[in-house]
């Protein structure tokens, strides 16, 4: 089955990043009643498609897809127990930027060509500055502008029509974005309503499950300097959120379920200077985005309770106000899969990758690798195998850096992993991995009473005719980690 994710704006991009990482960890595979997995299709909407968040999302997706293809390509379906890691198909359905049809609101509505009465109406709804605002870097916290632009353009957009045409009965559509910014705040209600209408009226699809995730203010930034430009101001977030929530209270969007996620004032920490858009608009990952991805899991796994006028609202809260522990992750299955994926990434980067490099000089010394390669193969790895090592290494790096940033953000103490065992942030706040000490493997998860040493994992790798080469080694590593980790 397929789930279409409509990610709106910068927050949507950050949520997608979290969704991709959790998809890699196997969070969107369900074991009950049978092994069932969702194919995820991402429709990305942002007027500023070159902002830092969107670039990060694209890089993460590219990295995931390449690794997914590599791992899946050699699978012959003969595995006794299918892996969870890297099995979910995540596809880039489309990206759409409303500004492709004009640089300003006035351009998009063809203001000079409008009848005088319509032009006057436009002037009543939007100030001259808003009409002339350059949309290349988003809607700058002006939901009214965004709603107007999206409502005007999306229905004629081929990619939107493709989306409506592709969705089948029993599929699911999930919208996500922020409630307090510009693009998300404007796109969410506009697109949500249009989608519900198009699916149910145009295509007569009654069983498509529709859901949404709205992120309440959960980060902040230094206020922009007054330069005459229209800009987002963090002090407005709460007021806007309040107004938007009142709107959602009284206006049904046609969604089956709506998830709201927000932070306490302590977690909405100031995180750097304001950027109105562009590549500098790159916000570090936040733990709430992981919860956003878990909202998607919840949405995908639960059956609709039957459509009614009242909106179902899901709710979760943490146990401690200023810290997060494993008890705050709602399902044991999710906890375990995150642990397995993290242990895998750590093991690959700290041990497997350097050992395979060492094996080029001393192929018979790396004993666990000899189950997957001939010594001659180890000495001269083929281009394909070299590429496979690099691809898996890239995913591991991307995942661990994301995790590292997520743990370091804000004043909340995120206590899921001991991130100092694999890296730290440099002076510019950029994540730097340091995996020289592979024996930190056993300290990766705090307060876990385990003597799970990496050497016990490596010694337990099980080669088989199906598990050969780099991919076989990776699969066997994941399988061994998941079978030997304490639950």
């Amino acid at each position, binding site marked *: 089955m397929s789930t279409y994710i409509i990610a709106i704006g910068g927050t949507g991009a950050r949520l997608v990043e979290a969704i991709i990482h959790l998809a890699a960890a196997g969070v969107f595979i369900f074991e009950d009643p049978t092994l069932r997995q969702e194919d995820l299709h991402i429709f990305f909407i942002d007027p500023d498609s070159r902002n830092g968040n969107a670039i990060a999302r694209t890089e993460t997706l590219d990295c995931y897809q390449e690794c997914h293809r590599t791992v899946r390509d050699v699978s012959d379906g003969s595995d006794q127990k299918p892996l969870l890691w890297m099995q979910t198909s995540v596809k880039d359905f489309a990206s759409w930027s409303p500004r492709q049809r004009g640089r300003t609101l006035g351009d998009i509505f063809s203001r000079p060509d409008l009848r005088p009465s319509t032009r006057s109406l436009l002037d009543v709804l939007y100030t001259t500055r808003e009409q002339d605002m350059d949309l290349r870097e988003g809607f700058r916290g002006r939901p009214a502008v965004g709603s107007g632009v999206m409502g005007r353009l999306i229905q004629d957009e081929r990619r939107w029509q493709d989306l409506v045409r592709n969705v089948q009965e029993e599929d699911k559509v999930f919208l996500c974005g922020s409630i307090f910014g510009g693009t998300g705040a404007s796109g969410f209600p506009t697109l949500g309503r249009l989608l519900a209408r198009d699916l149910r009226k145009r295509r007569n699809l009654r069983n498509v499950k529709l859901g949404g995730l709205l992120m309440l203010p959960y980060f902040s930034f230094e206020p922009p300097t007054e330069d005459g430009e229209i800009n987002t101001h963090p002090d407005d977030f709460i007021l806007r959120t309040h107004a938007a929530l009142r709107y959602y209270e009284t206006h049904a969007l046609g969604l089956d379920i709506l998830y709201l996620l927000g932070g306490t004032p302590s977690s909405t920490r100031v995180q750097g200077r304001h950027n109105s858009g562009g590549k500098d608009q790159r916000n570090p990952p936040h733990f709430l985005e992981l919860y956003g991805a878990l909202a998607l899991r919840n949405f995908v796994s639960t059956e609709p309770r039957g459509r009614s006028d009242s909106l179902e609202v899901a709710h979760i809260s943490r146990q401690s106000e200023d810290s997060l522990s494993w008890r705050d992750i709602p399902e044991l299955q999710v906890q375990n899969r995150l642990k397995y994926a993290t242990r895998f990434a750590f093991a690959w980067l700290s041990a497997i990758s350097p050992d395979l490099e060492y094996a080029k000089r*001393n192929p*018979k*010394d790396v004993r*666990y690798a*000899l189950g997957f390669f001939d010594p001659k193969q180890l000495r001269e790895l083929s281009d394909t195998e070299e590429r496979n090592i690099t691809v898996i290494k890239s995913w591991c790096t991307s995942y661990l850096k994301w995790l590292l940033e997520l743990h370091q953000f804000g004043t909340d103490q995120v206590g899921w992993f001991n991130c100092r065992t694999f890296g730290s942030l440099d002076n510019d706040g950029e994540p730097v991995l340091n995996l020289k000490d*592979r024996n930190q493997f056993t300290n990766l998860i705090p307060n876990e009473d385990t003597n799970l040493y990496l*050497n016990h994992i490596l010694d337990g790798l099980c080669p088989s005719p199906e598990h050969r080469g780099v991919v076989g080694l990776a699969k066997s590593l994941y399988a061994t980690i998941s079978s030997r980790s304490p639950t």
Partner: protein
Amino acid sequence: MIIFFQRLLFARGLIPTGSLSRADYVEEIFTPAAGIVLLVSVVFAGIWCWRTGKLFPTFVLISHKESVRAQWGMILLFLLLGIVVALLLGRPEAMLWLGVFLVIDCVVIYWLATAYSTPNLMVPTVPVGSWLRPIRR
């Protein structure tokens, strides 16, 4: 097998046994000496086994191989020194041949015992251990 073969060399008179009869030499000198070497080698291999068991969880081939191999060599050296000292103190008949045989016995027993008892990932620390314990796919 090696000890049996060496015993045979003395018993058949292929190696001179000095003032002692061949039978007496085998019974009173060679057999007890070889037995002690066997026992001591196994004990030292046991020490190695215990040591590698302790080292195994945190052993990193790339950085620890040489130092752990040096430990293996040190234990063997102690073993050989013990034999040499015992021979010099005892000054038995046919000391040269006996010494050569005991050293060979000691090295072979210790090497075999350590190669087979070392945890799989640490086998490369035992010289030529990988050859003795190949990986079967």
